[in-house]
Protein backbone atom coordinates (compact mmCIF):
# COMPACT_ATOMS: atom_id res chain seq x y z
CA UNK A 1 0.00 0.00 0.00
CA UNK A 2 2.78 2.36 0.93
CA UNK A 3 4.58 1.57 -2.31
CA UNK A 4 1.48 2.43 -4.29
CA UNK A 5 1.20 5.75 -2.48
CA UNK A 6 4.73 6.65 -3.45
CA UNK A 7 4.25 5.80 -7.11
CA UNK A 8 1.08 7.83 -7.29
CA UNK A 9 1.45 11.24 -8.83
CA UNK A 10 -1.31 13.63 -7.87
CA UNK A 11 -2.41 16.95 -9.21
CA UNK A 12 -2.62 19.67 -6.57
CA UNK A 13 -2.85 23.41 -6.56
CA UNK A 14 0.59 24.65 -5.58
CA UNK A 15 1.07 26.69 -2.44
CA UNK A 16 4.55 27.86 -3.34
CA UNK A 17 4.14 28.58 -7.02
CA UNK A 18 1.10 30.75 -7.21
CA UNK A 19 -0.10 33.97 -8.75
CA UNK A 20 -3.86 33.53 -8.31
CA UNK A 21 -4.78 30.11 -6.91
CA UNK A 22 -1.77 27.97 -7.79
CA UNK A 23 -3.47 26.10 -10.65
CA UNK A 24 -0.69 26.71 -13.18
CA UNK A 25 1.95 26.21 -10.49
CA UNK A 26 0.38 22.86 -9.63
CA UNK A 27 0.31 21.82 -13.28
CA UNK A 28 3.97 22.79 -13.57
CA UNK A 29 4.89 20.67 -10.56
CA UNK A 30 2.86 17.75 -11.92
CA UNK A 31 4.42 17.81 -15.39
CA UNK A 32 7.84 18.96 -14.08
CA UNK A 33 7.67 22.02 -16.30
CA UNK A 34 8.41 25.63 -15.42
CA UNK A 35 5.08 27.14 -14.20
CA UNK A 36 5.92 30.34 -16.10
CA UNK A 37 5.63 28.41 -19.37
CA UNK A 38 2.24 27.03 -18.34
CA UNK A 39 1.01 30.48 -17.35
CA UNK A 40 2.20 31.97 -20.65
CA UNK A 41 0.46 29.23 -22.60
CA UNK A 42 -2.73 29.56 -20.54
CA UNK A 43 -2.95 33.33 -20.93
CA UNK A 44 -2.08 33.25 -24.63
CA UNK A 45 -4.72 30.61 -25.35
CA UNK A 46 -7.22 32.53 -23.19
CA UNK A 47 -6.58 35.82 -24.99
CA UNK A 48 -6.78 34.35 -28.48
CA UNK A 49 -9.89 32.26 -27.82
CA UNK A 50 -11.83 35.26 -26.58
CA UNK A 51 -11.12 35.18 -22.82
CA UNK A 52 -14.21 33.33 -21.61
CA UNK A 53 -12.98 29.77 -22.23
CA UNK A 54 -9.67 30.10 -20.38
CA UNK A 55 -11.19 31.94 -17.43
CA UNK A 56 -13.94 29.35 -16.98
CA UNK A 57 -11.37 26.55 -17.26
CA UNK A 58 -9.26 28.26 -14.59
CA UNK A 59 -12.16 28.62 -12.20
CA UNK A 60 -13.17 24.98 -12.73
CA UNK A 61 -9.59 23.86 -12.05
CA UNK A 62 -9.52 26.08 -8.94
CA UNK A 63 -12.62 24.32 -7.60
CA UNK A 64 -11.65 20.78 -8.58
CA UNK A 65 -7.97 20.73 -7.68
CA UNK A 66 -7.26 20.38 -3.95
CA UNK A 67 -4.50 22.38 -2.31
CA UNK A 68 -1.35 20.55 -1.37
Amino acid at each position, binding site marked *: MKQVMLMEKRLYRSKKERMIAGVCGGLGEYFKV*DPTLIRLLWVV*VTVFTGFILGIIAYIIAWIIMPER
Partner: protein
Amino acid sequence: MDYHAREVIFMAKNSEIKRLYRSRKDKIIAGVCGGIAEYFNIDPVWTRLIAVLLCFINGIGIILYIIAWILMPENPKQKPGKMTTAEKAAKRAVKKNDMNSMVIIGIVIAVVGILLLLKNLGFEFSLLWPFLLIALGIFIIVRQKNEKRK
Protein backbone atom coordinates in the same frame (compact mmCIF):
# COMPACT_ATOMS: atom_id res chain seq x y z
CA MET B 1 8.08 7.66 3.74
CA ASP B 2 6.27 10.44 5.55
CA TYR B 3 4.85 13.58 4.10
CA HIS B 4 7.87 15.70 4.94
CA ALA B 5 10.36 13.39 3.24
CA ARG B 6 8.20 13.33 0.14
CA GLU B 7 8.11 17.10 0.14
CA VAL B 8 11.91 17.30 0.35
CA ILE B 9 12.34 14.93 -2.59
CA PHE B 10 9.72 16.83 -4.50
CA MET B 11 11.48 20.14 -3.91
CA ALA B 12 14.83 18.69 -4.94
CA LYS B 13 13.32 17.47 -8.20
CA ASN B 14 11.60 20.76 -8.71
CA SER B 15 14.79 22.79 -8.50
CA GLU B 16 16.25 20.86 -11.46
CA ILE B 17 13.70 22.36 -13.81
CA LYS B 18 15.08 24.82 -16.31
CA ARG B 19 13.22 28.04 -15.67
CA LEU B 20 12.29 30.93 -17.87
CA TYR B 21 13.16 34.34 -16.43
CA ARG B 22 13.35 37.86 -17.70
CA SER B 23 17.01 38.69 -18.12
CA ARG B 24 18.50 41.40 -15.98
CA LYS B 25 21.68 41.57 -18.02
CA ASP B 26 20.46 41.36 -21.59
CA LYS B 27 17.57 43.77 -21.74
CA ILE B 28 16.28 46.43 -24.09
CA ILE B 29 12.75 46.91 -22.76
CA ALA B 30 12.04 44.43 -19.96
CA GLY B 31 14.46 41.58 -20.71
CA VAL B 32 11.81 39.23 -22.14
CA CYS B 33 13.69 38.47 -25.37
CA GLY B 34 17.00 38.34 -23.52
CA GLY B 35 15.50 35.87 -21.04
CA ILE B 36 14.09 33.63 -23.77
CA ALA B 37 17.49 33.69 -25.48
CA GLU B 38 19.16 32.63 -22.22
CA TYR B 39 16.60 29.84 -21.82
CA PHE B 40 17.37 28.39 -25.27
CA ASN B 41 21.03 29.45 -25.11
CA ILE B 42 20.87 31.45 -28.32
CA ASP B 43 21.83 34.96 -29.38
CA PRO B 44 19.13 37.44 -28.25
CA VAL B 45 19.28 39.08 -31.69
CA TRP B 46 17.21 36.16 -32.96
CA THR B 47 14.53 36.32 -30.28
CA ARG B 48 14.25 40.07 -30.82
CA LEU B 49 14.00 39.61 -34.58
CA ILE B 50 11.21 37.07 -34.10
CA ALA B 51 9.41 39.39 -31.64
CA VAL B 52 9.55 42.26 -34.14
CA LEU B 53 8.31 39.98 -36.96
CA LEU B 54 5.41 38.87 -34.75
CA CYS B 55 4.39 42.51 -34.33
CA PHE B 56 3.50 42.54 -38.03
CA ILE B 57 0.89 39.81 -37.58
CA ASN B 58 -1.99 41.90 -36.26
CA GLY B 59 0.27 43.22 -33.49
CA ILE B 60 0.46 39.80 -31.84
CA GLY B 61 4.07 40.47 -30.87
CA ILE B 62 3.13 43.47 -28.75
CA ILE B 63 0.40 41.57 -26.91
CA LEU B 64 2.69 38.58 -26.34
CA TYR B 65 5.48 40.81 -25.09
CA ILE B 66 3.26 42.49 -22.51
CA ILE B 67 1.86 39.13 -21.35
CA ALA B 68 5.39 37.74 -21.01
CA TRP B 69 6.51 40.88 -19.16
CA ILE B 70 3.80 40.34 -16.55
CA LEU B 71 4.16 36.56 -16.20
CA MET B 72 7.92 36.09 -16.35
CA PRO B 73 9.73 36.85 -13.10
CA GLU B 74 13.11 38.58 -13.19
CA ASN B 75 16.07 36.25 -12.93
CA PRO B 76 16.93 36.13 -9.22
CA LYS B 77 20.39 34.71 -9.92
CA GLN B 78 21.50 37.72 -11.92
CA LYS B 79 22.63 40.95 -10.44
CA PRO B 80 21.07 44.04 -11.96
CA GLY B 81 23.26 45.94 -14.38
CA LYS B 82 23.95 45.60 -18.06
CA MET B 83 26.68 43.47 -19.58
CA THR B 84 29.79 45.13 -20.89
CA THR B 85 30.47 44.88 -24.62
CA ALA B 86 33.37 42.52 -23.92
CA GLU B 87 31.05 40.14 -22.03
CA LYS B 88 28.53 40.25 -24.86
CA ALA B 89 31.19 39.45 -27.45
CA ALA B 90 32.46 36.52 -25.37
CA LYS B 91 28.92 35.17 -24.99
CA ARG B 92 28.27 35.42 -28.70
CA ALA B 93 31.49 33.60 -29.59
CA VAL B 94 30.48 30.62 -27.45
CA LYS B 95 27.01 30.41 -28.96
CA LYS B 96 28.08 30.49 -32.58
CA ASN B 97 28.87 26.78 -32.65
CA ASP B 98 25.62 25.67 -31.10
CA MET B 99 23.87 23.71 -33.88
CA ASN B 100 20.74 22.90 -31.88
CA SER B 101 19.90 26.51 -31.24
CA MET B 102 20.28 27.34 -34.93
CA VAL B 103 17.73 24.62 -35.69
CA ILE B 104 15.31 26.20 -33.17
CA ILE B 105 15.82 29.64 -34.73
CA GLY B 106 15.29 28.20 -38.21
CA ILE B 107 12.04 26.50 -37.21
CA VAL B 108 10.65 29.58 -35.45
CA ILE B 109 11.49 31.93 -38.33
CA ALA B 110 9.96 29.48 -40.81
CA VAL B 111 6.78 29.25 -38.70
CA VAL B 112 6.54 33.05 -38.44
CA GLY B 113 7.04 33.29 -42.19
CA ILE B 114 4.28 30.76 -42.83
CA LEU B 115 1.95 32.70 -40.50
CA LEU B 116 2.71 35.95 -42.35
CA LEU B 117 2.05 34.23 -45.65
CA LEU B 118 -1.24 32.80 -44.40
CA LYS B 119 -2.26 36.21 -43.15
CA ASN B 120 -1.61 37.76 -46.55
CA LEU B 121 -3.63 34.99 -48.19
CA GLY B 122 -6.57 35.92 -45.97
CA PHE B 123 -6.32 32.97 -43.58
CA GLU B 124 -8.76 33.02 -40.68
CA PHE B 125 -6.56 32.92 -37.58
CA SER B 126 -9.27 31.57 -35.32
CA LEU B 127 -8.87 28.29 -37.24
CA LEU B 128 -5.32 28.03 -35.93
CA TRP B 129 -6.21 27.42 -32.29
CA PRO B 130 -7.80 23.98 -32.61
CA PHE B 131 -4.64 22.77 -34.36
CA LEU B 132 -2.43 24.26 -31.68
CA LEU B 133 -4.46 22.54 -28.97
CA ILE B 134 -4.24 19.22 -30.83
CA ALA B 135 -0.46 19.63 -31.09
CA LEU B 136 -0.23 20.46 -27.38
CA GLY B 137 -2.31 17.44 -26.46
CA ILE B 138 -0.09 15.13 -28.49
CA PHE B 139 3.01 16.73 -26.96
CA ILE B 140 1.78 16.10 -23.41
CA ILE B 141 0.86 12.47 -24.19
CA VAL B 142 4.24 11.77 -25.82
CA ARG B 143 6.06 13.39 -22.94
CA GLN B 144 4.20 11.34 -20.34
CA LYS B 145 4.93 8.13 -22.26
CA ASN B 146 8.62 8.96 -22.49
CA GLU B 147 8.74 9.62 -18.76
CA LYS B 148 7.16 6.26 -17.98
CA ARG B 149 9.79 4.51 -20.09
CA LYS B 150 12.53 6.03 -17.98
